[in-house]
């Protein structure tokens, strides 16, 4: 009886260890996707000055000089940035980066494919209706993803879906599947 109980406990322990390590490996990737985007910390750096103030219950952060924003594998680099979040709830609203140009890169999924983009400004936010993480490139926008290479006045890109739901022309480029 004791031998069976011991054997059972060993099997249970082994199962727990295996499932834990498998789960950690499965969820270890910090690539932005729809299910875990809000759990990945959003970070920023700037060499210059940061100014914070409150306007209409929105906390506004102005960053100067070599600004970098990153969340997981998403990296946006520019000259200046504005980050906004809601004062009562503390929730992040959006980040806007300006540059000459602004550079955007992100690894997509686990297959190490990458998306690159440039534009005069980039907005990063969650779409209100769907909650999808959204990268909106405005002004001389150009993006290269696994499925498309396109230049437009404005490009809206959903990294979790590798999808361009909307653009504002004039546009030039190719879509591929």
């Amino acid at each position, binding site marked *: 009886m004791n031998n069976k109980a011991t054997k059972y406990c060993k099997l249970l322990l082994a199962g727990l260890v295996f499932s834990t390590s498998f789960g950690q490996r499965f969820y270890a990737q910090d690539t932005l996707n729809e299910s875990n985007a*809000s*759990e990945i*910390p*959003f*970070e*920023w*750096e*700037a*060499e*210059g*000055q*940061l*100014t*914070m*103030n*409150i306007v209409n219950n929105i906390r506004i*952060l102005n*960053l100067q000089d070599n600004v970098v924003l990153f969340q997981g594998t998403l990296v946006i680099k520019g000259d200046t940035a504005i*980050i906004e*979040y809601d*004062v*009562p*709830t*503390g*929730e*992040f609203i959006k980040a806007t980066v300006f540059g000459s140009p602004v550079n955007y890169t992100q690894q997509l999924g686990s297959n190490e494919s990458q998306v690159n983009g440039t534009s005069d400004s980039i907005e990063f936010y969650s779409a209100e209706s769907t909650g999808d993480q959204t990268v909106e490139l405005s002004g001389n926008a150009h993006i290269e993803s696994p499925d498309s290479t396109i230049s437009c006045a404005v490009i809206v890109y959903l990294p979790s879906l590798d999808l361009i739901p909307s653009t504002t022309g004039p546009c030039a480029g190719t879509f591929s599947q």
Partner: protein
Amino acid sequence: MQKVATFAISILIAIGLFSALASRSEPESSTTDLAASDSLNYESYSEGINTVRFDANGNINYTLRAQSQIQYSAQLTEIEKPLIRLFQDGNPTWNVVADTGTVNHFESELTEAQVTNRTIELSGNVEAYSVDDYGNRTVVSTEILLVDPNTEILSTESPVKLKSEFIEQSGIGMLADLKTDEVILHREVRGIYEQQSN
């Protein structure tokens, strides 16, 4: 006879030299005594300090508590374990604590206007904290902080950290206007936003 005279003259010369050397060393010892007495020259020492400052309208401007206080002159006071509480419209807004502090008074306090002109330089584990109208707590941490209780401006050239519920930021140098809720970090800014999931 001649030998005795020579010996006597030698003795007199030796005594004269010794006297001259002894008199030259006396001023130094008196100077050292003066220096030692200057370092202990304070006007008053107190413990359990609890000061309340009012503005021109009679509202509390700020309060200052300290474990102990040494007043060296009319312009300089050192305090241990200070706690400064700032008020706006009679309501407490920010608390600031530190290991030590120095209260600088501007000129002599001859008029009512000059009475309120003072700054407090805090050093050692300085923390300023506040809770806003929505219950969000903000903590500012640094090693040296200059507090102007009248303008409610905090400033430092040292590394500083700001922490609120979801955001933590750091930088070198800060200017914070507590009345307008505007904060400036001068350079090398880093920040992280992380919402804790339940």
